[in-house]
């Protein structure tokens, strides 16, 4: 699980980044709620970064037995 999680952090971070960034478009298109692009991007990066670090050092998530397979 350790190996899987270490790869899961960048993959999950990428997915989280995309979700948060596209939420801005949804807010703008559906609710006409405009956000400052620079602030929103910085906030997105900070949130993604903190979660990635938290996952990496074990503050978030829990360890499970390793059962990874290589191709």
């Amino acid at each position, binding site marked *: 699980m350790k190996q899987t999680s270490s790869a899961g952090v960048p993959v999950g971070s990428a997915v989280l980044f995309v979700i948060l960034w596209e939420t801005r478009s949804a807010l703008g298109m559906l609710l006409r709620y405009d956000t400052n692009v620079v602030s929103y991007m910085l906030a997105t990066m900070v949130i993604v970064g903190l979660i990635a670090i938290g996952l990496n050092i074990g503050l978030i998530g829990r360890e499970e037995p390793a059962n*990874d397979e290589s191709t």
Partner: protein
Amino acid sequence: MSDALEAGASTFVDQFPAESKVVRAALWSSFLSLALGAVFGIIQSLHRTDVLRVFESADYYTILTAHGVLMVVSFTIFFLVGLFTWAVVRSLDRPVENIRYTWTWYGLMVTGSLMAVIAILGGFVDSTSLSADVLFTFYAPLQAHPLFYGGLAIFLIGTWLAGADWFRSWWAWKQDNPDERIPLQTFMVLVTMLMWYIASIGITIAVVGFLLPWSLGLIDQVNPLLTRTLFWFWGHPVVYFWLMPAYLLWYTVLPKIAGGRLFSDPLARVVFVLFLLLSTPVGIHHQYLDPGIADGFKFIAMTNTMFLLLPSLLTAFTVVASVEHGARQRGGTGLFGWLRALPWRDPAFTGMMLAGLMFAAGGFSGMINAGLNINYLVHNTLWVPGHFHLTVGTAVALTFMAATYWLWPQLTNRRLYSRPIGLAQVVLWFVGMALMSNAMHVAGLLGVPRRTAEPQYEGFAFEPMFGSIAELDIQLAVGGTILFVSTLLFVVNIALSSGTPRVSGLSSSLPPALSGPNDAPQVLDNIKLWFGIAFVLVILAYTLPLASIVSRGGLLGPGGDAFPMIAAPIKSTLTPILSVSVEWLGGLVA
């Protein structure tokens, strides 16, 4: 299939060295097209956003055509013929019937591609008459040099002969195994090719019957609406020609990489049969704004298109179920906790999963395109490229690249040069495409047009609902740049893999489905029946629209009535009434 292959004792190249060469050649042709297409992609994304301009805007359509044709004709189709050759040979466990024949169709495809690409690139050279600035959607009234149409025709013939090669293998296998079910991968290949043969009818008539003679000067004019309709007769099912190989990989390879087994073989067969039946009689949904096609035909095309969602939803269920099974086999638990047990560090797995995730978004934007009324909002705007960069540009392209990380070692007996680079590559593609496609979708909703080097109009400004147009341009340019970097990483990684030492033990078997082929009704394997039904559906969907177009515009006439079509029925209703009235009044006066 081969016990040795399935036991993991030997790789594909060990068992079938001659076929491996063909597959590798096809994949290299694909990757070279990808690399060249990516160069034209980054040029146009930086150009139209005005970030960096290395060409004149007058050359934009040459660049756009090169990008489109290289990516969606050469890259995708070369990859899938390689993949299909691998899948048929592997699943039937027998070599091709005649390897010279196999090289012949590959040679034809290369020749056709080179002819078409030379014609397109001729557009950069002023001193030559060569030019094919007709975009991937190469219907009239845009006209290309005959070399372009000739190349397309030869390329098409190559794909037909490739299909015949796989049917020949299956037929030979069937003589030796009369009572066995068609192996799943071969079934998928054969059904895809049947769809391709039906779809090709439209483009063959358009190119050989009209566009090529027109460009050679043998005929003076063509009916633009007729060539458009014949193009889209092929132009929508070609999307499934790209997509069904990706489905083959999601159904048969992805569950294995996830550590599990395919959930249901019968469901996979049903999905492919549905694609054969439904993917062709829908092309008119690309022509909602074309005058000259009555709204009733467009409504039928829309209805058929909505049915096409069914096989994709079935796929989402089957593939996710298979992956979840794999995760639980690997020790994953909980409602969503099993996601953590998946092999995310494997670029083949992660790439295919991210491609599937993007495909879901592409499916939603596709429903907008397919809706007869709401399509008017997004037609010919940047929304449309945003949509197909999620489908063919990610669901297909990213799946092909990710699958290469799994397939390549078995075709070469060489390890991948770098799995971390592979992982970074697929994640970069996901992020880059999310940025670029998001910007395209939003800009499209604001009315920003597609297919132009200069999207801004004199004295007119698009009004954003949030942020600014400049911000969307930057997002598009950044996304395009990340995609270009990702493409380079992929091609370089595969190229460097050719230099790694040969090793043994790289074989990777494909386990049988949880619910196997014997759980499927025998009728599913009756491909003659499905081909017949598909053919009848196409006749029903296209006979009246084509007859209507030809009767009004002629085979070679200018064609098309004024929009809206409501004018035609009113005129045709009023004319007889008026003439009778005039006659009656004339009688009275007399």
